């Protein structure tokens, strides 16, 4: 069996597990699994830089943050989980079927095209790409980080203050 196809199927199943699960811990693990599959696919596509970023940030750091946050959340009771699972399954039963159908249609419709693709940047290190070629993106990311910090201040600090008052 084609390895890529197998990886894509596992990727799809992991993604479905993420969006269909009623337990947020399982959803977080599903997301980590999705990221790991993407990482392997990126390595197979000869894109190790992107793979390393995906593995360290998405599968690693984000999963740790998610699981740490989930540990503060009150878990659902078994009855609540059963009720929500039934409701969700009923609601999204068609989703996997639809995905498989779309996949089959796309495979049938899209024929491989051969075009001469220009040579892209290859062989450059992360440091060279980030600091010599994408400096404006770094500036954008600095602004996003600042906005994120303000978001946390605006949305959570006052809530903490109110909790202290109570």
């Amino acid at each position, binding site marked *: 069996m084609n390895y890529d196809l197998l990886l894509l199927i596992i990727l799809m199943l992991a993604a479905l597990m993420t969006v269909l699960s009623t337990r947020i811990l399982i959803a977080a693990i599903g997301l980590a699994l999705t990221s790991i599959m993407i990482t392997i696919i990126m390595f197979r596509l000869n894109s190790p830089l992107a793979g390393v970023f995906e593995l360290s940030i998405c599968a690693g750091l984000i999963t740790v943050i998610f699981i740490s946050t989930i540990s503060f959340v009150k878990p659902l009771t078994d009855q609540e989980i059963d009720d929500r699972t039934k409701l969700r399954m009923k609601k999204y039963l068609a989703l996997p079927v639809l995905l498989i159908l779309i996949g089959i249609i796309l495979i049938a419709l899209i024929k491989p*095209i051969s*075009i*001469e*693709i*220009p*040579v*892209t*940047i290859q062989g450059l290190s992360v440091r060279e790409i980030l600091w010599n070629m*994408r*400096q*404006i*993106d770094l*500036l*954008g*990311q*600095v*602004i*996003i980080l*600042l*906005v*994120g910090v*303000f*978001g946390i*201040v*605006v*949305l959570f600090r*006052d*809530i903490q203050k109110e909790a202290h008052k109570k």
Partner: protein
Amino acid sequence: MISLFILVPLASVILLNLFKGSLINKIACWFGMLLTLAQVYLIVFPCACFWNNLTNPLGNYFILNLSADALTKVMLLMIGIVTFISLMIGQYTYHEETQKFNFANLVILAFAGMNGIVLVTDIFSLYVFIEVVAVASFILICLYKDKAGFESAFKYIILSIAATVFILLSIALLFLISGDTSFAAISSAAKNPNFSFILVVAIGLFICGAFTKGGLVPFHSWLPDAHSSAPTSISILLSGIVIKVSGLYPLIRLLTITGGGNESIKNILLIVGTVSILVGAFAALGQSDIKRMLAFSSVSQMGYVVLSLGTGTTLGIVGAVFHMFNHSVFKSQLFANSAAVEKQTGTRDMNKLGGIAQKMPFTGTTSIIGMLSICGIPPLAGFWSKLIIVIALWQTAHYGYAFVAVIASVITLAYFLSLQRRVFFGKIAVGLENIKEAKAGLIIPVVLLAVVTILVGIFFPVVMNKLIMPVGDILK
């Protein structure tokens, strides 16, 4: 020196936070207003020593590839005007000092992000700055921390992520055919006939993302909720500029660097534009909340912009940009009017209002000016941009679309007349007998914007020649 448009707001936020205190909390909004006014000044009174100066304030260690053509300058002017008005309204509508300070910081950061979007010369950098504005918008929408705000922000996040997926897929395809993400590389790859299929798919995906960010039908569901549940100062920012800079500007930029796409792309733009105009206008007719009506009106007016882009001609692009500029002015003014009404009467429900023009003459008069302009009544600014759009459609033999554009103006007039009758005219509603005109902080911005609407209309030839027509050069 144009990198200062991004660096100065960023440095300002850092400075404001370094010296945070009671005084800084009070002046944060004023400080932001000063920055935006400086930006407007630099566009209206261009100084060669600024625009032609290629000095990099960060030295040779941190090189930012930015450029500013005529389109960028119009966008920078719009960003400056709308952000100034948003900060001014925020200064008078937030009471808590900390809330005012946080609001000012987030708006200044969004301001830096919007400037970044219009200045970058690389499609991936464009995406990064779109995300800056999106993240700032999520937080600003739920600034009041009420249920409706959180729900709208969540809806916006979900649709925004979908838009991100489309835009990133498009960028990946463009990278595939050009080997780089700079506008210049994409432009030269677009001329290669071997890549025409991939290019059309990439533009199609980008259009889906841009339509979601711009709140066009069928991706508009987040817009009325977000605009109506956000504080008015944020609604002004969202409707006045964010949907244009995050959604329509990137689309215009991509279409111009790739030669406008093929006939199928143009047809998609024409159809989506027309459907947005009609859906937005008919939905606005049925609203009783002023801000919700204005939000649906934005969907309709953005439809005009997309319809104009669908012509693919220089005049079409000029008309689209001119209508975006006019919309940013009169829609900001109408939202500011709604803020004044809400502040003085305590409601935005049109069924509970009536006859308040006699008690609030400035608000009533300026809202009529805004209404007449958005409906395309001569000689106000909105008339000229709609006229250019209709002429562009007529010149390209799209007579049916031109007819719809004219008819939709009548529907626009119908729902705005309904708003005027229910809110400002007739007998004064029970309980509103003792209301007074809003304070200067809410009156000055609407008067300023009404003056801009009138002046742009009267001095149309000057505005057209100096500011708008040069935008057509980006196609050359």
